[in-house]
């Protein structure tokens, strides 16, 4: 059996395409920041398509997208205070670039500690709303100056966000750099955004590169909520899925844009899948979950897990943190 096994795996090879991609790594500078390794890579290839994507947005902006998204996710109308907070975190931009007859403009940017929602307006494309549901840029890079010290990699995804009355397609870019606790994206900075070739599914619609530069002013995020005690939640072991041990998280911190958790036992993250059924319960009964997360290690050995809320949250309206059916009251 051993020989048969060896003969069989002797015929399993990495594809030529993978090999070429790996060999091409040598063309990158080793310290290149815009590559997307580790867990954040998963975000980079995730293209989320919302239900009801072809929204008629007129000249709507990012607050309308959040309001629409909140209604779809929770079944509730977004609170006016929450919209006010989103406005506070959002900066109108208006900078753009034209390539091959297509103009891409950064409409606005909404900021979190370690997430940027960037609303893009794409004018000059000849596509229908049906086609647009699978649209995104084939490549994306961003440099931020001054760059947060701990930032070494990032993830991103694109989401179609409707059409404006002038026919321009709106696309939401979520930018998720892997930052440690000391760094945030809230400081004033200059941003250079590079977008490469616009594609619909497998088809390239417009080849080219759009380079857009803009500045972000300092933003203030409302104070976060913290849990005084540790919490225990069931996790799925990587080796024996039939058993569900509980894992402990400390220093639970909820910001308007993220959930931060610290593994009580860093070793556990090698043994279980990071528990991912987190949501926030609002006072009006609305419940909003996260849209993914990343993990990183701190120099002192602590292991941190960060999840991003789908929409910025007004923390004064939050009732509890939930994990599946488990409820952890706040306030």
């Amino acid at each position, binding site marked *: 059996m051993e020989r*048969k096994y060896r003969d069989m795996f002797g015929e*399993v090879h*990495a594809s030529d*395409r*993978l090999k070429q991609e*790996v060999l091409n790594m*040598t063309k990158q500078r080793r310290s290149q920041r815009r590559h997307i390794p580790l867990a954040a890579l998963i975000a980079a*290839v995730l293209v989320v398509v919302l239900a009801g994507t072809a929204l008629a947005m007129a000249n709507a902006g990012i607050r309308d997208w959040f309001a629409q998204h909140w209604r779809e996710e929770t079944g509730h109308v977004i609170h006016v205070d929450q919209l006010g907070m989103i406005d506070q975190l959002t900066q109108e931009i208006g900078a753009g670039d034209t390539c091959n007859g297509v103009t891409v403009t950064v409409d606005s940017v909404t900021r979190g500690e370690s997430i940027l929602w960037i609303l893009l307006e794409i004018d000059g494309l000849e596509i229908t709303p049906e086609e647009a549901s699978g649209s995104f840029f084939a490549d994306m890079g961003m440099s931020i100056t001054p760059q947060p010290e701990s930032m070494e990699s990032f993830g991103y995804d694109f989401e179609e966000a409707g059409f404006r009355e002038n026919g321009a397609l709106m696309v939401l870019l979520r930018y998720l750099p892997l930052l440690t606790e000391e760094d945030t994206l809230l400081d004033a900075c200059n941003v250079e955004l590079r977008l490469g070739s616009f594609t619909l599914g*497998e088809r390239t619609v417009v080849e080219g590169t759009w380079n857009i530069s803009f500045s972000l002013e300092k933003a203030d995020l409302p104070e976060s909520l913290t849990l005084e005690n540790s919490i225990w939640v069931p996790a799925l072991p990587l080796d024996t899925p039939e058993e569900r041990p509980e894992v402990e998280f400390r220093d639970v911190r909820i910001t308007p844009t993220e959930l931060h958790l610290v593994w009580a036992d860093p070793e556990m993250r090698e043994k279980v899948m990071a528990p991912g059924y987190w949501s926030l319960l609002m006072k009006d009964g609305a419940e909003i979950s996260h849209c993914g997360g990343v993990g990183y290690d701190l120099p002192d050995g602590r292991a941190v897990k960060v999840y991003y809320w789908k929409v910025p949250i007004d923390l004064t309206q939050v009732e509890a943190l939930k994990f599946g059916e488990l409820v952890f009251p706040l306030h």
Partner: protein
Amino acid sequence: MLTEKEFTEAVEQHLDMVYRIALNWFRSPPDAEDAAQNTMLRLWRAEKPFADGEHLRRWLARVTLNECKRISANPWRHRMVSMEICPEPVFSDPARQTLFQDVMELPGKYRVPLYLYYYEGYGVREIGELLGMKTSTVQTRLARAREKLKTQLEEA
């Protein structure tokens, strides 16, 4: 840091191993490619010197397993990759195709130790070190994997 030539040689020698370990972990070629790519990127950026080829091979095996764990643990583990881009392995002999399917049907906890033992030639203690398991656990899993595989082959 490896030179470009050293890195290219490492890719030629070890990329298949990295991919196979990841394929045994995930069973899914797209996920295995992700893990393999991340692992090789880590190698390209690694600042540590490698004493010899065996040191490099073991480092790659360990980093691959860590990457597999990281990807498994990420809630964003959803990919849109066409099977045309990441094809399933193709074998010269139908019997090998069947054996591959039988191996892939084994529980995950058995597949990786089996591969490291049978194909890469690691000892039980080394596999225990790579997987963070006791030697006795590895021995038990190997025995059960062999037993299960034998049963599957007999049934086939």
